[in-house]
Structure formats: C-alpha cells, structure tokens
C-alpha cells in the first residue's frame, strides 16, 4: 500500500466518521466520533509533514475539547427511549440532504483540482513561512487570550446560579 492509498483511506474514514458524528443522536457517542475525526485529521497532518499542527490537533481537539464535551454531557440528563426514537426520525429528516452536499463538495474540489494551474508553494518554503508564522504571531496570541477571557465570563454569567444575581443591588 503506497502513500496515495493511505491518504485515500484516511480521507474516506474522515468523511465517514464526520457524517456519523453529525447523525448520531447520542451526544456522548457524537463527541467520541468527533474525537476520532480529530485523530484522523492529526494523522493526515503528520503525513503532510506538518507535525506542529498535528500535535495541536491531537492535544487540543482530540484531547482537551473531547474531555470538556464529555464533562459537560455528564452533567445533562440522557434522553428516554421514546425521546431517542422520536429524535432519530427528526435527525434523519434534518440531514436528508447531507450525503448530497458531501458529494457536491467532493465534485467541486475534484474539478477545482483539475482546473487549477496553480503550483502550491514548495515544502521548504512552507517550512520558512511556518517559522515566520509562529515567530510573528504575538498579536494573534493576545486575541486568543481575550477569547478565553470572554469564554470565562460567558461561563460565569450564563451558568452561574440565578440566586447569585440577588447580591448587591
């Protein structure tokens, strides 16, 4: 099996697991399937020789985010059997166009690839660009810190018990 076949296999698995994650009505299973999608993405990124992106994908998306998802899901009440059956029918209806959209996107990308005369930047140049990207992104880092701060406020404001609002008037 050469590298092209491995890429094809991984990309096919990525699409299949993404669809399964979107269609699954058990939210905990959907979160686990999403973690598998992240894992596959990390593998693809490793094969594309971008280890830094792969490690981030693996640690943050497959790891940290899945832990947060599962922690939050564990605080919620699961659906009853009847609710699950009802929800399943709704979900299938909601995503009836999903396979069609996937096929259209695949066809569009196939055509885009064939019609383009653009030659991507070589791997060595990307490595230089990557170096620049990580050394000159302090401004983005500040933006990301602010997003985390906003998230913290969001959790405090939206999930804190209402009785706390009755504090100081």
């Amino acid at each position, binding site marked *: 099996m050469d590298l092209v076949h491995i890429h094809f296999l991984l990309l096919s698995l990525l699409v299949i697991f993404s669809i399964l994650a979107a269609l699954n009505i058990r939210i905990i299973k959907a979160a686990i399937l999403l973690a598998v999608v992240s894992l596959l993405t990390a593998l693809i990124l490793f094969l594309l020789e971008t280890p830094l992106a792969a490690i981030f994908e693996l640690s943050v998306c497959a790891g940290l985010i899945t832990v947060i998802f599962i922690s939050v899901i564990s605080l919620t009440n699961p659906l009853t059997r009847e609710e699950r059956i009802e929800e399943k029918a709704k979900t299938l209806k909601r995503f009836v166009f999903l396979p069609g959209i996937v096929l259209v996107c695949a066809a569009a990308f196939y055509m*885009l690839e064939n019609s383009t005369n653009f030659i991507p930047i070589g791997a060595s140049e990307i490595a230089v660009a990557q170096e620049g*990207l990580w050394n000159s992104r302090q401004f983005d880092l500040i933006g990301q810190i602010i*997003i985390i701060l906003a998230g913290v406020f969001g959790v405090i404001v939206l999930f804190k018990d209402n009785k706390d609002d009755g504090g*100081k*008037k």
Partner: protein
Amino acid sequence: MTISLIFVPIILVILLNIPRLSGKTAYYAVLAFFIWQILSVFFPFTGSQQLAGLIGKVFTLNVYADGMSKIMIISAAIVGFVSLITSKAFSKYDSRLFSLSNLMLLSFAGINGLVFTKDIFTMYVFIEVIAAASYILISLDKKDGALEGGFKYLIISSIATVMMLFSISLFFLTAGSTGFAEISTAIRDFGGNPVILAAVMLFITGLLIKGGVIPFHSWLSGAYAEAPAGVSVFLGGIITKTVGIFALIRILYLVTGFNENIKMVLLITGALSIVIGAIMAVTQKDFKRVLAYSSISQVGYIVLALGAGTAFGVAAALFHVFNHAIFKSLLFVNSAAVEKQTGSLDVDSFGGLGYKMPVTSGTSAIAFLSAAGIPPFAGFWSKLLIILALWSAGYQGFAVLAVVASLFTMAYFLTLQKKVFFGELNPKLENVREAPLSLTACAIFLCALTIGVGLIFPYILNVFIFPAVGIM
C-alpha cells in the same frame, strides 16, 4: 496609540477582577476608557503614546492606525459610551453591571485590534473576539428569547467563521503569508486562479454573513430584538458594522480590489438588502424589530456604495457607517426609553407618547429623518454621496433605486413615529413619564451629533472621510 487602545481594556479587565471590584466601579472605569479612547485620537499626548512605548518594549505587534481605523474607533467609543449608560438604566443588580462592563471592555479590545490590523488571520482572530463577547452580551438576561437570539447568532456566525478560516488557508497557500500586502500581490499575480477566486469568494461571503446582509440576515432580527436594551444599542450601532462591514471595506480596499464580478455581487446584495430590509421593516410590530430590519436596509446602502468600486464609493460607505452608528444608536436608546417607561415594545399598543415623552419623541423624529436622508441631517449627506458615487461610476439604475428606497425608509419610519409618538394618547399610558435623565441625555447627545455632523459635513469629509481613502 494603537497598542495602548488594545492593551488598556485587557489591563482594566484584570484590574477590575483581581481583586473583584463593584459593578459601579467597573461601570465608571469603562466610561472613562471610552472618553479616553476618543481623546487619544484627537490628542495623542493624553497618555496613549507613552503607554504604547512601554508596551512596545515587551510586545512586537504589527499594527498601525490610519484614517479608516480612526473613524471606527471614534464611532465605537461613542456607541459604547451610550450603550453602557443605557444598560445601567436597566441593570437591577451590581453583578450584572459588572459582567456587562467587563464584556464591553473585551469587545473593545477586539474592535480596536480589528481596526488596527493589516493581517487577514489577525483580523479573523479579532472578529472572533468580538463575536464571542457578543454571544454572551446578547444572552446576558438569560431570557428564552435572548438565549435563542444568541444561539442563532452563534450558529450562523460559525458558518461564516468556517468559510473565512478555509479562505485564509487558501490565501496562505497561494501567498505564503497572511499579510494584506502579500495576499494583494498574490491576487494580482494569480488573479484568475480558481483557488484564489474560491478564497476571495469565501471570505467576502463570510463577512456578508457577519454583517447580516440579505440573504444572510436570518440571525440579525432575533439578536437585535431579544438582546438587553443597552446591548441592542451596541450591536445595532457598532458590532455588526465592525465585524461585517468595516472588515469588508478593509478587505476590498486593501486586499482584493474591485473587479466587475465583485462589484456586481456587492451591487445586487446591497440593492436586495435595501429593498427587502425596508419591506420587512414595514410589516413589523415590535419597535426593536423595525429598527433591526431598518439596519439591514441601511447596511444595504453601505454595500451598494462599495459596489461602485471607486475611492469615492468607499468614502461614501465609510461616512454612512459613521452616520448609521450615530442615528441607529439614537433610535435604539429611544426604544430602550419607551420600553423602560411603558414595559412594552409593541408599536400597536402605543399612541400619543410624544405628549408624555417629548424629548424621546423629538430626538426619534430627528433620527428617523436622518435615516431617511432628509437634509440637513448627517444621513442626508452620506446618502447623497452614495448616490453620487454610484452615478459617477456608471450605475445610474442603482443610484435611482437608492433614491426610491429612501422613500420606503421614510414611509416605515413615519409610520413608526405616528404609531408610537403621535395621535391620541392611549388611556393606558396616562401615567407614563419622560425617560430617566441618563437616557434622555444620551438621546440629546446623539441627536446633537446627528445635527452637528450634518451642519459641518464639509469639515468631516475633508478632515476624516476623504483622507482615509486617499482622496484629497
């Protein structure tokens, strides 16, 4: 100035939280920050430069202020100021005022970062900063409608986010960098390439979704109408204008440039937004929903001006962004005043409120006239510029449409003014009084700006608007 306007809100958030101070202290600190933000544009010696020098020793940030960013930070600070005062009038609890003040500071760190950056990825990060703070601000009251509005905004905005991120990866692939200048060069060199075309199309579509332009408007009315009163002022006045429209102006002006396809997309979406926004505004029964759909229509004018594809068109769009921020904030402040005094926003339940709330009624009438483009108010001059820009660019049909649609604007605003403030007083409203001083003072201040900018428009154009786009 640039670095300090990004760092000071973050430093303030830290100082307000460690140790946690009261909501009132946070409120006054944020108001002071807004005043300082405006002063730092006109008087850089007020500390912003010295502070920037200190921060610059630790961080290396590739940011700088130009004419466009100055216009936006002035507009943002004015809208933020009145929005916070409006919020205070509705805040029953200290903790709510504290959270709101902090979230507004975080939004401002995002707004200032967005307007000063010259890098498409940094722009994306700061758009997300503003969006993250906005979701929470909309849902702050935890009422069902507000949570639904915030959630809808989150979901639709996420679609735009994915499109923009994918577009940035394509830009990076072709340009080897995410700087505006490098991407602009790549677009010039590989203009007809499908990868570049896809990237441009995805990014512009993402920004149009964030700006709530037709046909991407479905989130906007719910978010504006269900958000707490002060947050509606903030959202309607500046948030969507910054994350959607200002970012669009920046990308079109500094990165992609204008070609016939881009111009046609902008002209058609702009025209659709003007007409459909106006028609939908006529049919609404909720005061804030009328204003929300009116925002879609007014944003349509801005997009239409950009569709002219000239520096004059961009100048007209920028001027209308500023004017819209002022008169739309005024209208949202007045809707807050009406809600505060009557407990309702249903326009059919009012009538004759002008007798009881003369300041609110008078300032609303001026804001309506400015929005409809009646001289000598500020809105007239920016609409006139839009029409002239379209006409001189050869799009006479769209210029005529802009004039005709102004009549529509006039129609729905006159209907609203008549239903709410004119006519016989509804007996149920006999005990209603004028809004509290904080709200009427905000309304008078914004009203004075609308009249003042209209009267000194040559100065505004020559000193701020035209130099920002290189005309002069």
